[in-house]
């Protein structure tokens, strides 16, 4: 069973290795390896063993959260239990087979490298801890793979109803905040390495099953065999339990989908006498309220924002509270970044009514504003009141982000559309969507970039001690917001009107339309969009890594004239500064290499294609009389 499933998965992966998926796999794999290398580096940090163990435990917990969250963003796994529902195989066997197949993949390989940090850590204390670390490593990897699959199953079942979707949203927000607040630990690394963590934190982090391997290895260095064997046995027991749970969950779906009802006859035509934009607005608002996927997006934004604001309270800081509203709008834009993709091929109705592209885009923007703007404003007011200060900052950030978000989400969702199954095909498996990580990140960064003029004004005001300038930030935010909303919306409209049929084709066929080529076609234009995206992204990363994060801090180190500003390496303890600089230089060079390679490969491919075309044409010319 396991062998068959593994071969099957490899076959699927082999066939999907061409196209955007391969680009993403490659990019994701490289980024993952860099993070995995970072994890191993944690194991080699020069500090008290207990502190290192704490750091490792935190890092492993972040990895585990990542695995649990993964399916919510990356879509469904390659092999699904439903595909084997009619095969005469027992559920436990199927579960074991699927588990084995789940180990085959880029993510698992990357995680294995990261978890090897445990072995590296153990190697500091001799042979026995290393022997302990190996089963711990295997169990830990199995644990995260299983957790991920179970979470996908659980969230998938929950997300079919609106209440379930809201619950999923809150859980997702909690895990997102916890996993990304891990950086707090690393910001304070200097202090942590000297003084260690507090006892409470130490214990708390060790309770998590992802840390039990660390606990076992640590105990073996003290020759405390009870605490060596105990956690390993517990981990094994947990793995068995999860396999059994999973096998049970593979059966027929238990949670039925709750059916949402529409409005009654006399309510259906409400607002029907208004303009077409209002028609789209009403349609969109009905969708926001009735579609579990949209309900999840509505809940996850404020939940994430509030948690992000509340978490620093643990350290006695209320500094995040005024920005809770802005973060809500930011997350709202991020989670709406594939709105057109979510609606699938329904785009044909817009195409068949030429001239309504503008109504469609503006209506969606207005609906987005209705959903997120009041929420964002209220949260900003409450947060600022609780903090008691920072009002100009909060106003500038909120106005800028609402406007930019409302303009950018719709532009990204037209421009970076990720095709997925049509909504009526995945109504029972809402997690079965395209991988929306790309457009989400693009929106995130663009909205942040669009908010910099407003925030910059406030910063300038407070640096120069000009209260008037500080308050002017809000005005700048309002202006840039309105401008972004109008301008990016207009771009989306133009894009939709110009490329409508191509977008519909993309959603229908699940792949880009291959345009006809000519000799004048520039390589950059002819290459598939995802390749172009990869080229520019790696070029951008290359610029960032090589110059400001690599060469500049290197120059400072050599000259001894150090200004930390935003040079990451210079914030780290002395021993880590050179390795980090070297790492950035390496990443920079690799990124430039990657973009150069993409360009070369694509220009060669274009040339070959054109030659083949010319050959074909010559052949036809021989046969057919001209004219």
């Amino acid at each position, binding site marked *: 069973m396991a062998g068959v499933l593994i071969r099957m998965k490899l076959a699927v992966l082999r066939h999907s290795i061409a196209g955007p998926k391969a680009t993403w796999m490659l990019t994701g794999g490289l980024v993952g390896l860099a993070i995995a290398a970072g994890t191993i580096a944690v194991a080699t940090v020069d500090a008290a063993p207990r502190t290192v163990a704490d750091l490792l435990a935190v890092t492993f917990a972040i990895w585990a959260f990542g695995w649990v969250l993964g399916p919510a963003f990356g879509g469904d796994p390659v092999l699904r239990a439903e595909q084997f529902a009619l095969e005469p195989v027992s559920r436990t066997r199927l579960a074991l087979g699927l588990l084995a197949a789940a180990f085959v993949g880029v993510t698992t390989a990357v995680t294995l490298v990261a978890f090897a940090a445990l072995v590296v850590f153990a190697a500091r204390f001799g042979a026995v801890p290393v022997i302990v670390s190996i089963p711990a490593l295997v169990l830990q990897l199995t644990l995260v793979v299983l957790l991920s699959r179970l979470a996908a199953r659980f969230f998938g079942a929950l997300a079919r109803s609106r209440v379930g979707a809201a619950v999923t949203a809150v859980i997702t927000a909690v895990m997102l905040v916890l996993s990304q607040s891990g950086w707090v630990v690393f910001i304070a690394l200097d202090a942590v390495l000297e003084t260690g963590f507090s006892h409470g934190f130490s214990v708390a982090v060790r309770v998590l099953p992802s840390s039990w391997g660390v606990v076992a290895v640590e105990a073996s260095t003290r020759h405390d065999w009870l605490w060596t064997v105990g956690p390993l046995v517990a981990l094994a027991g947990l793995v068995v339990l999860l396999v059994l749970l999973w096998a049970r969950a593979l059966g027929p779906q238990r949670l039925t989908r709750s059916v949402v009802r529409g409005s009654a006859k006399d309510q259906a035509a409400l607002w029907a006498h208004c303009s077409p934009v*209002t028609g789209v607005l009403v349609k969109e608002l009905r969708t926001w309220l009735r579609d579990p996927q949209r309900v999840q997006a509505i809940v996850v934004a404020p939940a994430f924002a509030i948690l992000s604001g509340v978490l620093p309270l643990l350290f006695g800081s209320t500094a995040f509270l005024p920005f809770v509203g802005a973060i809500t709008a930011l997350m709202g834009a991020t989670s709406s970044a594939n709105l057109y993709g979510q609606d699938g091929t329904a785009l044909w109705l817009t195409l068949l009514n030429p001239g309504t592209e503008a109504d469609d885009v503006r209506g969606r923007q207005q609906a987005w504003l209705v959903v997120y703007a009041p929420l964002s404003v209220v949260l900003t007011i409450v947060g600022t009141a609780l903090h008691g200060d920072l009002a100009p900052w909060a106003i500038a950030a909120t106005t800028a982000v609402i406007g930019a978000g409302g303009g950018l989400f719709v532009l990204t969702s037209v421009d970076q559309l990720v095709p997925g199954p049509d909504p*009526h095909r995945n109504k029972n498996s809402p997690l079965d969507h395209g991988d929306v990580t790309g457009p989400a990140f693009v929106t995130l960064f663009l909205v942040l970039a669009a908010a910099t003029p407003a925030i910059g004004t406030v910063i300038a005001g407070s640096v120069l001690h000009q209260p008037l300038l500080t308050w002017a930030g809000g005005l700048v935010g309002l202006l840039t917001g309105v401008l972004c909303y109008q301008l990016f919306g207009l771009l989306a409209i133009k894009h939709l009107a110009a490329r409508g049929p191509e977008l519909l084709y993309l959603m229908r066929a699940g792949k880009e339309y291959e345009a006809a080529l000519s000799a004048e076609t520039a390589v950059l234009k002819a290459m598939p969009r995802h390749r172009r995206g990869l080229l520019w992204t790696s070029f951008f990363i290359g610029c960032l890594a090589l110059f400001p994060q690599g060469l500049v801090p290197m120059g400072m180190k050599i000259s001894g004239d150090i200004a930390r500003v935003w040079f990451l390496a210079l914030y780290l303890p002395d021993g880590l500064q050179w390795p980090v600089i070297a790492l950035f230089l390496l990443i920079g060079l690799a990124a430039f290499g990657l973009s150069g390679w993409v360009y070369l490969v694509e220009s060669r491919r274009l040339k070959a294609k054109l030659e083949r075309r010319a050959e074909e044409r010559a052949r036809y010319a021989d046969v057919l009389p001209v004219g």
Partner: protein
Amino acid sequence: MLPQVDGGTAAFQLLGVHKVFGEYTAVDHADLTVAPGSFYGLVGPNGAGKTTALSMAVGLLRPDGGESRVFGVDVWASPLEARKLMGVLPDGLALPERLTGRELLSYLGQLRGLDAPTVAGRADELLDVMELSGDSERTLVVDYSTGMRKKIGLATALLHGPRLLVLDEPFEAVDPVSAATIKQILNRFVAGGGSVLLSSHVMALVEQLCDTVAVMAKGRVVAEGPLDAVRGSASLEDTFVELVGAHLGGGEGLSWLAS
């Protein structure tokens, strides 16, 4: 064999429409002419290019070359005017899924700039005829069955009172009761002076409904004309198999099956 209709008065014309996907030619310089008041069937095996041809015909897919005209109006040059004249039912495409049938019709009427009372009246009639009111009044389109989806699709195509209907596989996966309803509506539409262009691979159905047929195979229109002229003395199915040059499988091998 081509029907002689003046280009200006034909209900619908496809002139040398051509589409290539990468290396694959989906539709190869296809010509079709639908006379006013005719019930026109486009048949062909799976992958013959029917959906691609119809998508280009109505403006959902940009052709590499050729023209598409509705009552003489170019679909790609004057889309607004052309689309007022036709109603379209594509196969298997999504709709605004979280609306009820009535909400959907009311929304589309609003989008097309029809006045609200007219839309309300038409929606009422359409939903009653299609049996989508009453019990299913508050059901969202996402929860509709395949037959119901086809029927609401047809209702959206009819809502603005078009003179030509372009329907891609209107009977695909539809139960006999819904199919009978759809057939009756289409016959009434043609009797009232409308023209219908539909694609199907159910020969019996095309024989029963259509007065004119075209056969597509491998992206080309291999025959077009009045039903009786195309099928001659044989059945449409036999003529079709002969025209598309198919080899009938299923005769050899499989000796182990139910032996």
